[in-house]
């Protein structure tokens, strides 16, 4: 029987077999940010240990960083202390770090690929659940807890149990105005937030091959929202072209060997998966989440669900609770939901392609007066510079949108950017949990183009007819 892509990467990283279904797995790349690393570094110090292979680590502050007036530093003392701790720890242990004022700074899951620090076939870990993003490169990438961050630092390995494998095939081609975000939301709507539990998902099919690397990152980013340990997309020419020439990419003399290795990074034709799910790309419309879990999502043309039509009492209760929190009525058309804020950013949708898509919608138009704030937060300083070189910042500013400094920002509201209680946001981020973007805040997950259109119209609209 053939091997899956997951099997191939796993097998290439087994240091030793635990004999009980677990194995010691070698970690090629460890990405570090300020929130989940301080206790791991302290653990190293308490035990007199050092990082096993310093060069495998790359660090950046992102969760706590301000997106305005950055030169003035971080106002909140506790946020500042976390960022300063990262500075001190990286200095003490010799780990490469992009500072707050470095133009390469950005969201950890944006800068890894951007720097070529994420490469096909690697194992990539980070103390952050959205590490699944890096699976877009045919890398096995997943989030870990603080003890595991310390373990990865100290040993360059993790003790892991192999997950089951799941293939999600999206057949055919999506229509215009339908993006990777819509595909990933439609998948979660279909299989549920526990649908991928215990599995590593490989995404395949024409619609996935059609996606750019940016789109594949958006797709894999939300594998964790489907409950999966990781998401994967097989390597193809797009992957290789994206990596070429990036700072951490293989040097010219190693390039050909690397490429011939990467070309083997796909599931064999006769590989078997524990579970297979198929979707038809043509059926996927732009999606809008209406509830407090990413699986609570519908096409923009649909209506908010009616709990009275749900026969399962547990599900009915969940719908009622979500509608109450979200301040929505059953059966109201999605397009009649007015919004207060727009957030375009996060590790899901803050790359150049996302900003281009949003700018294309905004160009020559004005933000609705009823929208209090529409903010665009690029994923990294380099994305920001690229967007500015293309004049996208002017497009946003002319439309009344704000153009900010890179970071996680209102994705989780650990910095100053947040929703006030009751405020409703069209957001390109990945989680619509209660309070995620600020206590009492109401999040609707959408694509960048859909968020931009909502900002112009003041309510959700189908970007295909906008």
């Amino acid at each position, binding site marked *: 029987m053939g091997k899956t892509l997951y099997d191939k990467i796993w097998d290439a990283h087994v*240091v*030793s077999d635990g004999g009980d279904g677990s194995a*010691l797995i*070698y970690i*090629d790349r460890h990405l570090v940010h300020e929130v989940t690393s*301080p*206790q791991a570094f*302290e*653990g190293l110090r*308490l*035990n007199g*240990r050092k990082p*096993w*292979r310093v*060069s495998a680590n790359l660090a950046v502050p992102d969760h706590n960083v301000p997106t305005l007036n950055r030169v003035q530093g971080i106002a909140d*003392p*506790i*946020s500042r*202390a*976390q960022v300063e*701790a990262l500075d001190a720890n990286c200095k003490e242990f010799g780990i490469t770090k992009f500072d707050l004022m470095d133009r390469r700074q950005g969201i950890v899951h944006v800068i890894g690929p951007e720097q070529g*620090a994420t*490469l096909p*076939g*690697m194992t990539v870990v980070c103390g952050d659940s959205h590490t699944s993003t890096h699976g877009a490169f045919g890398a096995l990438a997943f989030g870990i*807890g*603080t*003890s595991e961050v*310390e*373990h990865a630092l*100290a*040993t*360059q*390995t993790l*003790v892991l149990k192999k997950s089951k494998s799941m293939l999600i095939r999206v057949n055919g081609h999506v229509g215009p105005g339908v993006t990777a975000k819509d595909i990933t939301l439609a998948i979660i709507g279909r299989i549920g937030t526990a649908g991928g539990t215990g599995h590593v998902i490989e995404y395949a099919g024409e619609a996935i091959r059609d996606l750019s690397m940016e789109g594949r990152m958006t797709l894999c980013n939300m594998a964790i929202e489907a409950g999966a340990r990781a998401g994967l997309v097989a390597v193809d020419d797009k992957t290789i072209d994206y990596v070429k020439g990036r*700072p*951490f*990419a*293989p*040097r010219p003399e*190693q*390039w050909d*060997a*690397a490429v011939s*290795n990467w070309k083997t990074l796909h599931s064999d034709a006769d590989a078997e998966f524990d579970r297979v799910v198929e979707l038809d790309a043509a059926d996927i419309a732009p999606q809008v989440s209406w509830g407090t879990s990413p699986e609570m999502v519908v096409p923009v043309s649909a209506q908010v669900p009616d709990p009275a039509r749900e026969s399962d009492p547990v599900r009915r209760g969940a719908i009622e609770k979500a509608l109450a929190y979200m301040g929505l009525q059953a059966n109201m058309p999605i397009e009649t939901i007015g919004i207060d804020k727009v957030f375009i950013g996060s590790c899901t949708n803050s790359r150049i392609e996302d900003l281009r898509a949003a700018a294309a919608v905004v160009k020559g138009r004005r933000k609705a007066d009823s929208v209090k704030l529409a903010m665009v937060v690029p994923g990294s300083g380099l994305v920001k510079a690229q967007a500015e070189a293309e004049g996208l910042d002017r497009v946003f500013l002319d439309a009344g949108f704000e153009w900010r400094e890179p970071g996680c920002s209102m994705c989780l509201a650990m910095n100053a950017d947040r929703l006030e209680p009751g405020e409703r946001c069209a957001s390109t981020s990945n989680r619509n949990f209660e309070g995620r973007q600020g206590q009492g805040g109401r999040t609707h997950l959408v694509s960048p183009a859909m968020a931009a259109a909502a900002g112009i119209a003041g309510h959700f609209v189908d970007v295909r007819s906008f």
Partner: protein
Amino acid sequence: MRAFNVVASKVMPLDRSNVDTDAIIPKQYLKSIRRTGFGPFLFDDWRYLDPGTLDIDPATRRPNPEFVLNAPAHAGSQILVARDNFGCGSSREHAVWALDDYGFRAVIAPSFADIFFSNCFKNGVLPVVLKADEVQAIFDLVAADAQAQVTVDLPAQQVQLPDGRSFGFEINPHHKHNLVNGLDEIGLTLQQADKIKAYESRRQQEAPWLFAN
């Protein structure tokens, strides 16, 4: 990691079930950058009458005299006994760090939440599962004599009471080995350092670009 062999100590009786990790260490303390120093905030909401944050000195706060942790008779206990489903709720490792920092070496309960249970072993704290009537016997013992010494003997897998009763408990042999020898997962993995090095040198031949930066 500190080894765990035999711990003999007074017992802190926390007569509650479903003690969740937010009760063990409330969320405002998760902004800390340390893994030590959580002891003063252990059971914060129950232990103090006024609210706390990381930047309020716990010494200036008003302890709740009704809460068992503040009872002088129980001060210095290294064993905590509680009811069912101890450690439920969020996966925060801070809950174990707080118990450890306060000075608890072992927690005895009829059942534990999964993630909390496995986090204990990563941090040298022993979770002991006893039957409900055995847990009750320990509560009764402490109620009668707060100074009673209970012994948790990990090698023998027994909890011994001063009146000679002893209760056996189960533990995964792998966990037991690590605790008795003071091996944290990292220490254990480092015993395979040669294998990691061998892997690296083989891999460096196969895929040198992975080691370039």
